[in-house]
């Protein structure tokens, strides 16, 4: 079986979830779901030996062959790393959710269907080699994230957060699609691998920078980079397992994946290095600075995630520099990409455990407000230990994995100041300084998170629940992650060789040809390097600032609320809703006659202008049959009937006259040998007269003083225009013989090809079957609309009555 189908396993498993939930209600549905990521994780680990040799595998399945769109699963070091993260963290999160979500009170089937859908989408994003299917999965992650954030859909904040995240990420996704299309125009292929091969030629294309910027929009919105990060804090309304999984470990890293995947293509560009590194660093500083303003545990973690994503982003940008320096001259440049991937793995472990701890605190105390928490150390010792491990790792302290990648990050940033291309020699010195300041704040918020929750004074009267340690099942997942955090510190090179180096090979194929060429050895002790002194500085300044936090934290309230990005988003949304509403109010008057005026005017303008632009107007009176006497009489009857409609004093007369006009038209059809049309016209007339009589009751009475329709010049002009247009079209259609009529084709093929005798009916069901299909669909929609209109109005009446009765 080709492994492209493994991507879809979670999606098919999702189909079974509702049945399992309904039929087997005794067992928590999560236990069945747990099997999916565990099995997938097992399957995907078998690919590890292959990528360690620097090889890759691909398997494809054609989706839309006529457009050349297919699902291509391409597994190399980078995609395998992400795949293992998705399935591995996925398994832990599902396990955690079994204890977090109560099986009787929560709608588990919804939750697990969305979660499995997300798993498929995310696997698809990291494995797709075809850009269109990559985009498809990309938007699917946005949609499943929307559904998961809005899981508690009865809460206003959940719905708001869900919509906000979707608006921003889908906006970025569409930009990215534009970038993909530009790339395919440039390289004439949708395959990322084939594009990378063409990288040197593409770099000189005029669309190159455009595609770069557009793709970065996608990456930055998804990975919550400045200024798009605002959706992530609001996404924290999701259940905590979702926050741990989507909004810290996997989905928000899709943007990082995209940047890493496209690095070989764009590394040569100055734009790429500046944008990716600069945005990443700005996000790092911004996120870490504002994390201290938060009072919600998950809010702190959200801002911390934003800042850590910025860190990895800046490292990926710095990693692209090595394209210009090569591997020989400045050996320190090669560290950046390695550090990025290494920190990505580390971040998934410590941030995942911290989110789960935040969920446990919320679950066991009933609040996430850090001002109410404190002193939980003795009540929840295991949770405290795990939080301490995660927090110290995030702060960059030994002996935890965060220390190692933090050191490498500082190395990478220091190396930028030595880069002497693209004006980095003048501005480059800012990079290590910003990185250092951001690291100080990271240190402070890590301590803030851990010690404000677990140390200090316990205030039981502020907590909604009696605080106690979480059930053992809930602690398993964070404990596993916490163990990993420590273990990786002691065996970093095992992880380095197994996961990181193959991924680095995919990011920097221009430097290395196999993972063994990457001569980077992670060690905790490098000697007395500048990085070490910087770390000392971080720790000392960090402790001093944390000590005095209560003195300067109120400064955050001094920031004006009117100019925040959130305010910008809110006013944009408000403007777009109110603005479009006002705009449509201008022409949606609620009167049928206005709409008819629009439609008729449109018809006149479109047809007449086409006729004159194409020079199609022509009048010729050849090939005409003479007008017979009874045709003249019928025409006179028709005119008389129409005039009666206009001049009639009662509505009943008008309706009957309208019916007469219809039947007269049917007579015309009979005379002109069109039995099908005549039949249909007759029946339609019958039914519409009956309908009119039924609806008669509902129509407003004609005004006594205005028992004749008032003359309106505009309407008269439009009426005349429609008549003239139809006449011109009819005359021209008869006179123009530019193209042979299609009727001869129908005559020839109706029996042989379509197996019918009645051309009119064969056109309806066969030649132009699509038209009929859509027509009956429109009919069905119209009938639903009428049901809605009448029934809704009835319920409204009842409601009004009910209110009055009260």
């Amino acid at each position, binding site marked *: 079986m080709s492994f492209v189908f493994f991507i879809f396993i979670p999606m098919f498993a999702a189909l079974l979830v509702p049945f399992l939930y309904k039929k087997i209600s005794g067992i928590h549905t999560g236990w069945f779901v747990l099997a999916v990521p565990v099995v997938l994780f097992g399957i995907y680990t078998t690919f590890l030996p292959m990528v360690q040799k620097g090889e890759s595998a691909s398997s494809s399945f054609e989706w839309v062959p006529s457009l050349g769109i297919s699902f291509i699963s391409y597994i190399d070091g980078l995609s395998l790393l992400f795949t293992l993260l998705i399935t591995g963290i996925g398994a832990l999160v599902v396990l955690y959710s079994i204890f977090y979500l109560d099986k009787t009170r929560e709608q588990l089937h919804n939750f697990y269907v969305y979660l499995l859908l997300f798993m498929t989408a995310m696997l698809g994003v990291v494995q797709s080699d075809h850009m269109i299917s990559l985009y498809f999965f990309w938007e699917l992650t946005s949609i499943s994230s929307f559904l998961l954030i809005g899981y508690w859909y009865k809460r206003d904040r959940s719905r708001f957060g869900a919509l906000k995240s979707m608006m921003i990420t889908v906006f970025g996704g569409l930009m990215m699609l534009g970038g993909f299309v530009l790339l395919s125009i440039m390289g004439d292929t949708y395959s990322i691998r084939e594009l990378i091969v063409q990288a040197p030629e593409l770099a000189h294309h005029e669309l190159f920078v455009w595609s770069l910027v557009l793709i970065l929009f996608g990456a930055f919105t998804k990975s919550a980079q400045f200024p798009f990060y605002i959706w992530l804090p609001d996404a924290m309304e999701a259940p905590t397992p979702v926050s741990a999984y989507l909004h810290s470990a996997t989905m928000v890293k899709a943007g990082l994946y995209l940047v890493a995947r496209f690095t070989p293509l764009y590394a040569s560009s100055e734009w790429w290095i500046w944008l990716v590194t600069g945005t990443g660093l700005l996000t790092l500083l911004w996120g870490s600075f504002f994390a201290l303003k938060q009072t919600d545990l998950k809010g702190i973690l959200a801002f911390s995630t934003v800042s850590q994503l910025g860190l990895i982003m800046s490292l990926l940008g710095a990693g692209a520099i090595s394209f210009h320096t090569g591997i020989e001259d400045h050996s320190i440049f090669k560290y950046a990409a390695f550090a990025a991937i290494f920190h990505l793995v580390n971040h998934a472990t410590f941030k995942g455990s911290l989110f789960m701890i935040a969920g446990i605190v919320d679950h066991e105390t009933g609040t996430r407000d850090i001002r109410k928490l404190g002193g939980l150390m003795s009540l929840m010792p295991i949770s405290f230990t795990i939080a301490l491990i995660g927090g110290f790792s995030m702060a960059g302290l030994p002996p935890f994995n965060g220390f190692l990648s933090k050191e490498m990050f500082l190395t990478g940033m220091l190396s930028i100041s030595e880069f002497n291309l693209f004006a980095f020699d003048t501005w480059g010195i800012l990079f290590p300084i910003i990185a250092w300041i951001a690291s100080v704040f990271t240190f402070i918020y890590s301590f803030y998170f851990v010690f404000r929750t677990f140390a200090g004074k316990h205030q039981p009267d502020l907590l909604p629940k009696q605080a106690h340690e979480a059930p053992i099942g809930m602690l398993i997942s964070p404990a596993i992650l916490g163990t990993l955090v420590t273990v990786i510190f002691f065996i970093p090179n095992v992880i380095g060789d197994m996961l990181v180096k193959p991924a680095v090979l995919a990011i920097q194929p221009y430097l290395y040809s196999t993972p063994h060429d990457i001569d980077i050895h992670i060690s905790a002790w490098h000697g007395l390097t500048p990085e070490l002194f910087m770390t000392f500085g971080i720790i000392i300044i960090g402790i001093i600032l944390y000590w005095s936090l209560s003195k300067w934290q109120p400064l955050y309230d001094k920031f004006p609320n009117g100019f925040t990005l959130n305010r910008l988003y809110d006013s944009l949304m408000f403007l777009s809703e109110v603005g479009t509403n006002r705009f449509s109010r201008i022409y949606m008057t609620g009167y049928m006659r206005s709409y008819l005026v629009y439609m008729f005017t449109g018809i006149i303008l479109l047809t007449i202008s086409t006729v004159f632009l194409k020079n199609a107007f022509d009048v010729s009176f050849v090939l005409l049959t003479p007008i017979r006497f009874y045709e003249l009489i019928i025409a006179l009857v028709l005119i008389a009937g129409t005039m009666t409609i206009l001049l009639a004093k009662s509505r009943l007369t008008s309706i009957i006259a309208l019916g007469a006009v219809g039947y007269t038209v049917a007579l015309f059809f009979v005379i002109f040998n069109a*039995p*099908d049309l005549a*039949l*249909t016209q007759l*029946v*339609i007339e*019958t*039914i519409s007269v*009956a*309908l009119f009589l*039924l*609806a008669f*009751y*509902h129509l407003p009475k004609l005004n006594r003083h205005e028992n004749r329709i008032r003359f309106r010049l505009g309407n008269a002009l439009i009426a005349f225009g429609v008549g003239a247009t139809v006449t011109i079209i009819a005359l021209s259609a008869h006179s123009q013989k530019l193209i042979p009529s299609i009727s001869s084709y129908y005559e020839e093929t109706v029996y042989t090809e*379509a*197996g*019918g*005798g*009645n051309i*009119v*009916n*064969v056109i*309806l*069901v*066969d030649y132009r*079957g*699509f038209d*009929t*299909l859509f027509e*009956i*669909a429109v*009919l*069905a929609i*119209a*009938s*639903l609309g*009428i*049901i809605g209109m*009448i*029934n809704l109005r*009835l319920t409204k009446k009842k409601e009004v009555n009910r209110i009055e009765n009260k």
Partner: protein
Amino acid sequence: MKTNDVILQTTTKIIFFIIFLFSIHIFFAGHYTPGGGFVGGLLTATGIVLLLLAFDLKTVMNCFPINYTVMTAVGLLLAVSTAAGSIFFNVPFFTHAFDHFDLPLLGDQSLHTAMLFDTGVYLVVVGVTMTIIQSIGADE
């Protein structure tokens, strides 16, 4: 106001069946002679409307306890699935198939998948027309 409509009611009882049978005939004949699903459906609806005029809405609803919305949905589904059925035979969407069969009693008959599609059209037309008339008629 109670009107005397005995004549109308009596004739309707007979005429309705004539209209209905004629509509079925028109529907089946459609592929070779004038007619088809659309007209057939409309004619059937006309028959029911005649019943509505002669009797009242409640009586007719009791006679035909049909949910016309469901009827519309079934028709639409039938039409779409006939059109979509062709993709399972590796031919483009909406490709019809037909052949001649020697059926007992009926003799040589041509069977056509367009017939199924037309049945869908017929059901939708009857369903929609009756839905509209019923909901407007019921709302008084």
